[in-house]
């Protein structure tokens, strides 16, 4: 696959939590339409890294350039987050709202859409994730897989330039994971630019363009998915992969 210019550039990023360095000198580029998969043991700093991108976390040091603009304290974070969709491990659907309201509310508040427009857009995205018939269900009435697909629809409805997925399938029953991964695969095929923190090796191999392997706050290895899983360059990646059964 050919890539245009980097849409996102992370340079020498550091993050300290109460004296502990969670991210150490992390740098990488993300290109338009690229699917970047971040793997690594828990505590490696993967989630922190992508949470720094949409500023749910403030990095301690380093810079992030998104769409040609440096993100700093002059950036309007709310505007930034409209352009960077995020999907969480625990779905985080708004629990007091139905599936469709979860999508229409941000459209109305953030994108200033009318009720009618918002409804139309929300229905479109619910159909896209195959949940049109669940529009009026509350999150508590949906399975984990369904909740996550609604969450994906919610993020997509704002038409982001980049989607961040923070372990999107780790809280989902194994038999429901496929539905979520299928949605993500379609998204990748449509050319969405994505960063996916995940241990789904099948997904990484099939749709990932590049793998970042992280450990202890650093990027240890950057590789092509095929090569990474068959023949990792670093010893630590080898050790990590040997512990994962599901390759």
């Amino acid at each position, binding site marked *: 696959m050919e890539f245009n210019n980097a849409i996102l550039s992370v340079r020498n990023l550091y993050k300290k939590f109460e004296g502990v360095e969670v991210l150490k000198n992390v740098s990488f580029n993300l290109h338009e339409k690229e699917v970047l998969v971040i793997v690594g043991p828990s505590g490696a700093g993967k989630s922190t890294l992508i949470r720094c991108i949409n500023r749910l976390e403030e990095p301690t040091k380093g810079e992030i350039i998104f769409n040609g603009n440096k993100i700093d304290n002059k950036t309007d974070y709310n505007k930034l987050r409209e352009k960077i969709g995020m999907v*969480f491990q625990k779905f985080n659907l708004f629990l007091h709202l139905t599936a469709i309201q979860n999508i229409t509310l941000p459209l109305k508040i953030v994108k200033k859409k009318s009720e009618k427009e918002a409804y139309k857009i929300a229905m479109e995205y619910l159909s896209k994730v195959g949940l049109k018939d669940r529009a009026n269900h509350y999150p508590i009435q949906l399975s984990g897989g369904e909740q996550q697909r609604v969450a994906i629809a919610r993020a997509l409805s704002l038409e982001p330039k980049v989607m961040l997925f923070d372990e999107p399938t780790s809280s989902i029953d194994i038999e429901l994971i496929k539905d979520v991964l299928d949605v993500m695969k379609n998204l990748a095929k449509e050319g969405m630019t994505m960063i996916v923190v995940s241990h789904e090796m099948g997904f990484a191999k099939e749709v990932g363009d590049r793998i970042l392997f992280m450990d202890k706050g650093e990027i240890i290895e950057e590789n092509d998915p095929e090569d990474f899983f068959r023949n990792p360059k670093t010893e630590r990646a080898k050790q990590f992969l040997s512990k994962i059964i599901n390759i």
Partner: protein
Amino acid sequence: MGFDFNISLFMESIPYLIDGAKYTILFSLISIVFGILIGLFVSLMKISKNPFFNILGNLYIEIIRGTPLLLHIMIAYYGLAAFKINLNYFTAGVLALSINSGAYCGEIFRAGIESIEKGQMEAARSVGMSYAQAMRFIILPQAVKRVIPPLTNEFVAMLKDSSLLSIIAVPELLRNARQLMGTKANVWSPFIGAGLIYLVLTLPLTRFASLLERRFAKGGV
């Protein structure tokens, strides 16, 4: 003087006691409404990351909760007069009760807001909502449900504590009972009457609160 309960004196007392109870309810209802408004405000200050608001909210809660309601009533009625603010017993009573319950409601709201899972705020922010929008549309609507039981208990406390207003001659339930003690030369009949009326007011409310608590605990809506 022994136990002087007398059923006919008791029956005679009831209408006058009910007149007093009307004031008790009126003062409590008005004050809880103001108390809730103040409390909402104070709780948002207390959880704010802005140090000025944060300190202000904390100070309010600590000072009010660390001093007796009776003192607040006295200050509102007698103390403010020194600054040429002469309040009648109605205004002074509502002011004192509202300010007092504002601190307790503040803590109730804070606990309610903090009980909402962190992911809700993060998700709201991640779709581009401002902090204020996230509070208004996502956090508070969920917190409101959870604060209904403790707020009901706060209202029950207010119904009882408003008896302190008798010190500034508000004709509420306990003050009327005490008057009856003088006019009827009888202690137990009016006081048992007053106690029963307090129970009639508070018991259904506490039952309601604990019912809701149990329902929420089971994860119901």
